């Protein structure tokens, strides 16, 4: 190497960043930082093949019974928002993680970490919401825990729910099963939950209030599995389900691409987004592909299965606006791209951390 190219290699844009020594908010956003933390810290520490699949749930075999097992923590702020609250979210989130494995959700635990000084009335409202959501979802809350921390040591209320369910035989859904030729389906319009929360938090008011789409998806999943004559057929026809929560559609699809070592090609014009959500995103400088959803799922369908699945989805109240939005393709390295209406193509990358709005 000549000395000129040596000195060029030394050039940097203004300043070096130190290695990350502290946890940043971005580590919890479901984007690249989160993924990096999981891969570099948690996976090596707990090393086992079930964990390494990094699916929304773990499926364990106990004396012949296939149990789906998952946990999720809820730290949403504000506690109450249009379309839901931390209580209903805590049920839906965990039920959905189980459902994404094809499981019938059965039992939940709920653990509260409460900040000293929280009005009991607030807790009562949250508990009532938990009760209703669990009843509607057909799950029972069978065990729990309560901790109280000093004022200032926790933000009002955090909830953890852990859930178990049973998975039918022959169903081995996983994000590592996507293959070139598969199709990508989404169950409805995206971006509603994240915008509803942001609007509430920032005191933004829209002409048509945007509500969170928080909902339990196991009924929709059951309807989609039932589109096939047997669970074996379902297992071949559907590669995986995923619910695009924090990090939005893009994070979920990037994870699938990464785990299956494929490319995913989306079609921009067919991705369902409500006008109000588009408008809010335009104003706030956010991209709907990166905004959280709490009542939507992605399905990767084997060739030939997509049409039957779409029909089953659209027959279900939670899948009325379902669409086929893309295809899985061969790719030298995992990547998600999107085709614009102009026929050009760009990457849909995973975000580093939280989405930051534009400055001007």
């Amino acid at each position, binding site marked *: 190497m000549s000395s000129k190219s040596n000195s060029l290699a030394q050039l940097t844009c203004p300043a070096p960043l130190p290695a990350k020594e502290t946890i*940043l908010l971005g580590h919890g956003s479901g984007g690249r930082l989160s993924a990096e933390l999981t891969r570099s810290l948690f996976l090596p520490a707990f090393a086992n093949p079930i964990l390494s699949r990094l699916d929304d749930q773990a499926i364990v075999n106990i004396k012949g019974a296939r149990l789906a097992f998952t946990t999720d923590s809820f730290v949403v702020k504000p506690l109450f928002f249009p379309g839901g609250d931390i209580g209903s979210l805590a049920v839906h989130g965990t039920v959905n993680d189980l459902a994404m494995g094809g499981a019938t959700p059965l039992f939940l635990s709920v653990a509260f970490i409460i900040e000293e000084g929280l009005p009991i009335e607030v807790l009562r409202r949250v508990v009532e919401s938990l009760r209703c959501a669990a009843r509607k979802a057909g799950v029972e809350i069978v065990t729990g825990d309560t901790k109280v921390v000093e004022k200032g040591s926790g933000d009002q209320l955090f909830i953890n729910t852990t859930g178990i369910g049973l998975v039918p035989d022959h169903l081995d859904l996983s994000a590592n099963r996507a293959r070139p030729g598969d199709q990508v389906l989404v169950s409805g319009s995206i971006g509603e939950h994240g915008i509803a929360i942001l609007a509430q938090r920032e005191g933004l008011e829209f002409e048509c209030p945007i509500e969170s789409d928080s909902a339990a998806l196991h009924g929709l999943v059951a309807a989609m599995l039932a589109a096939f004559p047997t669970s074996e057929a379902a297992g071949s026809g559907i590669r995986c389900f995923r619910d695009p929560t924090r990090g939005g559609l893009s994070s979920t699809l990037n994870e699938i691409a990464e785990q299956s070592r494929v490319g995913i090609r989306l079609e921009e014009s067919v991705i369902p987004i409500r006008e109000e959500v*588009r408008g809010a995103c335009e104003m706030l400088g956010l991209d709907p592909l990166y905004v959280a959803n709490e009542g939507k799922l992605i399905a990767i369908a084997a060739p030939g299965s997509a049409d039957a699945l779409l029909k089953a989805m659209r027959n279900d109240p939670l899948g009325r606006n379902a669409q086929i939005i893309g295809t899985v393709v061969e790719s*030298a390295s995992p990547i998600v791209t999107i085709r614009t209406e102009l026929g050009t193509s760009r990457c849909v990358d995973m975000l580093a951390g939280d989405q930051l709005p534009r400055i001007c």
Partner: protein
Amino acid sequence: MKFLDEYRNAGVARRLLAAIRREARRPWVLMEICGGQTHTIMRYGLDELLPPQIELVHGPGCPVCVTPLETIDKALELAARPEVILVSYGDMLRVPGSTTDLFTVKARGGDVRIAYSPTEALKIARQNPGRKIVFLAVGFETTAPANAMAIWQAKKEKIGNFSALVSHVLVPPAIRALMTAPDCRVNAFIAPGHVCTVMGYEEYERLVAEFRIPIVVGGFEPVDILEAVLMLLRQLEKGEARAENQYVRSVNYRGNLPAQRIVEEVFEITEQKWRGIGSIPASGLRVREEYGDYDAARLFDLASITVAEPAECISAQVLQGLKKPTACPAFGMRCTPQNPLGAPMVSSEGACAAYYNYRRHQKDSSVLSSQFTADSEVR
């Protein structure tokens, strides 16, 4: 959505592209100076759709990217102080200073808050009388009126615990600096639509006269950019040089006079350092002495913070349109949005971020590029 969908209409875009292809004869280099426009170009792949005679280069259109290192370091210093609440637009939080960034300072306990407008900073100041609120007021002429208004209001209401750390940059002096640089290849400019919404485009006529280059004020949607390109092309092919306005739905000749007045009331023009470029005379704004009590630069003891810019830095060449981000040896390797070495990679308006986020796949997949060629030909 009104004012959006019409300007993203694929049919209209294709007709404009067809006209551009028909009328482009000689090679031309066009520069846009607005991060928002850069991102639209990258997002929709407009540069790939234009005929080879037209080369789009990207100017220093990202105010976050050109904020001097010193200003970032001063903001970081203030944010770390326990009595200070630093309020900033979200973009600034991950921009690297000399040793750290605002996100990291926040993680270590600094009170750093994101705002969508300076009025939120005023609100925080009113709600926290015991703390000192510093608003990081960064931007081109676009955000200057709102920031000026916040300072003006603070003085009117005597919100003594509010101040702004100001780093505003002006576009016309930047154009002048670019045009007088010896290696300048630019034949024409697309002027930034929102800057001109505030300032009008009267001042660009002086630049047109001085350098005999066409300048067209453009909007931010694909149709806006393509229309502006066509308007510039027509002037260039005829050997003309005029200031024109494509973004008529938002921009008029004189601009927003009340907005300009409040800017003049609170700010004055000053020499300004542009990160990666250097000092450009009369290219920035600072708080006038009458509003000195609301100027964080005066209020806090920050004079000891001076940082020398590195003698050579490729971001300078990127910001001046001399190099594409992909020419940087660190691009995509040591420098990524997760680990940015410089501001253009972290800012959502930065050229490097645009290239990284939207174009990385082109190294990997030649299948995709042949696909799009087929698409654009068929139509």
